[in-house]
């Protein structure tokens, strides 16, 4: 009678046979929205500190480094399609004869990466909390803000990679359009004399180089592509779109820094704790729908912070669980990890000044992990001629 009995035991879940591959636009969005994070708020200060009114050259320099960095990361990943960083690092560092060598050598390296991602995630959550508590919700305890943000990260970490990429794709639009609007309208207070002269003279070149170091740290986030490499398509357009992914935050940073310099002048700008927030406070909205914009900006910025902290936590969790050989959706490990990050966030740095210093150190560590180590690995891979490009196609061709 029941139709189920006429057709007993069918195969369940025929779909989901091939592993998920993200589109090039998704890779771009993932990159861009991971990069746009807390850096935006302090960037004008750190660049004008060293480079004075020429600070925006540092942003251009940093953008150049960023493009170089993503170039190395993508080149490295492209040699090992369908593999995460955890998987291919043991292949690069180990040997084919001695099987156990690779996993043993990679272990501390991957652990450092995982802890680094956990650290930056906690720093982002903490800085976010500090800003929200000082600027909008003055009566809310810091712990609650950090805690709710980390809970959102936890919720994201329970999902698959495809959800993470889709979330980033959707939120990037929600972030970029208002931020672009606000940073463009910040030009209403611009004064040309603050940014003159346009070409830096003698003594500034070294200072600009110095200033480009903090800019580099605000471009961190693309190193997540090491892990997401598993789900990248083998596509010629991939490299181009990944570089677009760096250019989107680059252009936003440039707009904001120039607007900041032109509105306040470098002397005032380099002494503010949250220069971008001050910039937005000075903006008038046409039509007087809203008196002030900073709450709206902070609202949008919640999404930006979430895409940064969420993706970083996702990577931290993913690396760790892949390292210990558990599926990365193991919920209790993830919960424990979030608790660790929460403790880190609340413990690091007593006041905002100390927090900034910790962030700087973490950033320098990040430069090593995002620029230097992938570069070294790429050199080793090139020297050892490890390249798996096009292997799957060949296999399938042989099979057919």
């Amino acid at each position, binding site marked *: 009678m029941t139709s189920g009995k006429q057709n007993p035991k069918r195969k369940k879940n025929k779909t989901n046979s091939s592993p998920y591959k993200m589109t090039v636009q998704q890779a771009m969005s993932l990159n861009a929205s991971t990069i746009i994070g807390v850096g935006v708020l302090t960037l004008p200060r750190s660049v004008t500190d060293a480079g004075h009114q020429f600070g925006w050259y540092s942003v251009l320099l940093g953008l150049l480094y960023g493009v170089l960095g993503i170039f190395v990361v993508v080149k490295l990943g492209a040699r090992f399609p369908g593999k995460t960083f955890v998987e291919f690092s043991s292949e690069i560092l180990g040997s084919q004869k001695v099987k156990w060598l690779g996993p043993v050598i990679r272990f501390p390296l991957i652990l450092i990466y995982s802890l680094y991602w956990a650290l930056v995630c906690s720093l982002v959550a903490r800085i976010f909390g500090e800003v929200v508590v000082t600027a909008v919700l003055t009566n809310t305890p810091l712990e609650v*803000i950090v805690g709710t943000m980390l809970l959102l990260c936890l919720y994201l970490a329970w999902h698959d990679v495809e959800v993470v990429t889709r979330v980033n794709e959707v939120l990037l639009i929600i972030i970029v359009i208002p931020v672009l609007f606000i940073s463009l309208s910040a030009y209403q207070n611009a004064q040309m004399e603050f940014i003159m002269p346009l070409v830096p003279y003698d003594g500034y070149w070294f200072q600009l180089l110095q200033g480009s170091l903090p800019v580099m740290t605000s471009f961190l986030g693309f190193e997540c592509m090491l892990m997401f490499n598993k789900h990248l398509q083998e596509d010629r357009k991939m490299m181009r779109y990944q570089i677009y992914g760096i250019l989107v935050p680059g252009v936003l940073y440039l707009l904001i820094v120039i607007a900041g310099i032109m509105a306040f002048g470098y002397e005032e700008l380099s002494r503010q704790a949250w220069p971008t927030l001050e910039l937005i406070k000075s903006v008038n909205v046409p039509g007087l729908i809203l*008196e002030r914009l900073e*709450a709206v900006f902070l609202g949008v910025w919640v999404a930006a912070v979430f895409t940064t902290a969420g993706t970083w936590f996702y990577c931290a969790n993913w690396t760790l669980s892949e390292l210990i050989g558990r599926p990365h959706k193991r919920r209790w490990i993830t919960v424990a990890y979030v608790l660790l990050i929460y403790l880190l966030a609340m413990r690091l740095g007593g006041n905002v000044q100390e927090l900034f210093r910790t962030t700087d150190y973490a950033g320098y560590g990040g430069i090593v992990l995002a620029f230097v180590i992938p570069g070294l690995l790429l050199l080793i891979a090139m020297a050892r001629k490890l390249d798996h490009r096009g292997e799957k196609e060949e296999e399938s061709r042989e099979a057919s």
Partner: protein
Amino acid sequence: MTRFVKPRKLSEWKQQQVLEERFEQKVDRLPEDGLTEDLDLNLKTLHEMLGYSNDLIIRDFICETPRHMRASLIFVDGLVSTEIIDDQIMRPLMITPVAEYKEHLLPPTEAVLHIKRSVLPIGEAKESAAFKDVVKSVLSGDTALLLEGCRQALLLNTKGWEKRSVSEPTAESIVRGPREGFSETLRVNTALIRRRVKDPDLRVKNFSVGTRSNTDVAVLYIEGVADHNIVEEVQRRIQDIEIDGVLESGYIEQFIEDNHWSPFPIIQNTERPDKAAANLLEGKVIIVIDGTPFVLIAPAVLSQFYHSPEDYYERFLISTLLRFIRALSMTIALLLPSLYIAFSSFHPEMIPSKLVIAMAAGRATVPFPSVVEALAMEISIEILREASVRLPGPIGPTIGIVGALIVGEAAVSAGIVSPIMVIVVALTTIGSFAAPSYNAAIALRMLRFPVMLLAAAFGLYGIMLFMILIVVHLCSLKSFGVPYLSPFTPRNLLAMGDSVIRIPLYWMKKRPNVFAESTDNVRLKPSSAEDIKPDDKWKTEPQTEEEQDQ
């Protein structure tokens, strides 16, 4: 992972097992070739199987064509059309054949075939030898003809119960478009769709769902347009349902949907045949269930829920504007009260100073914080709305006016709520009615309350937290393998033309492969858009007129 068969408790499962066995026993008690040559025994068995129900009618008579023998008609009173039985079954059988008939001596076994072939002027007839089939078709409105000395019964389609005629759909009314709506009968509904899509590739596959209700379910799709993976998945999920009864399409929907816990509808329903046909052409699968005018459309994506069939009938600028308005009103329905709470209690500095004075003056007498005020108003408006649905027709609007105007006015003058709150609540309610689909509007109405609480706790930050939560949830949803947020993510530029905006029909040259197979994706022949150039017409038409004049 998809779960569509509800997990049952062991005890329930066992109970169900017992019930099923009893039913099977009842039906399978007789051997497969159940019918015997003895008519009386056959009738007795049928009587016993149906428990001597009073609406079962057995009409004994003497059949004259093709030979003189005893026969019986079995049908359920009320399910059949007596005219068909009288004129098209009884009359030809009982009339004594004219002299040309030579087949008086046909053996009874061949008589059945003969009757089917050349006696009964009836469209649908099939012979069967099993009691199981006889009972099933009699219960669904067929008439069984049993003959003495024959091991086969003839099942004749005499369905003709009282049914509602095709009338205007009430839940989805539009200004411009066909006025026909689905009705409760499966065949009428599939015919309504067929009449709109006269494509030989349109497939109709029937299933029977419900161990006791034996409800007919039809799955419709266009072969070569619909993605065959989705079609197979839909059929598989429908076949896996093992429930006792299916009374409405909602039963099927709840069993085949991908996520039971989501507030958002993952399968769309409609009572408009034109909407169903348009969705078929987009490559979706339509599920028609007997006994309800609401058919299901699977898979569904979020952007469909603010689309209306009218969008394609009006010109594109107008429909684009209407879609913007609908998207805006749905946003208002979700967020306006919480924005009011957030702004008034956390960020008053953001409100322009003149407005903030007006708001403060309005709120001066209100004894509650804005969240209590908002919650109370929103809950009372929900009560009003629910009550006005249940109220008998003529009273409904009256109560609506009484509730909305008089109670609101009185509450303001009593100083319990502020006038701005009344505006906010009114806008929210109207905004949720602007959503073309009822189930999506309900989702927003439901989600409005947690956002209000979060806004009361964290201001704008709370609203953003909730929005991010919803975005993550929406991104994780899938409807039969199609991401719920497509075409926004994964981005599909071709399909984006028909999402928030609606590009002109002559730009939709290809069918986006969100739901459809990518093999045949031509919607519009490339030439047809260019053929019509206004300039040419201006040149040619006056000439012809002049020629006619001459």
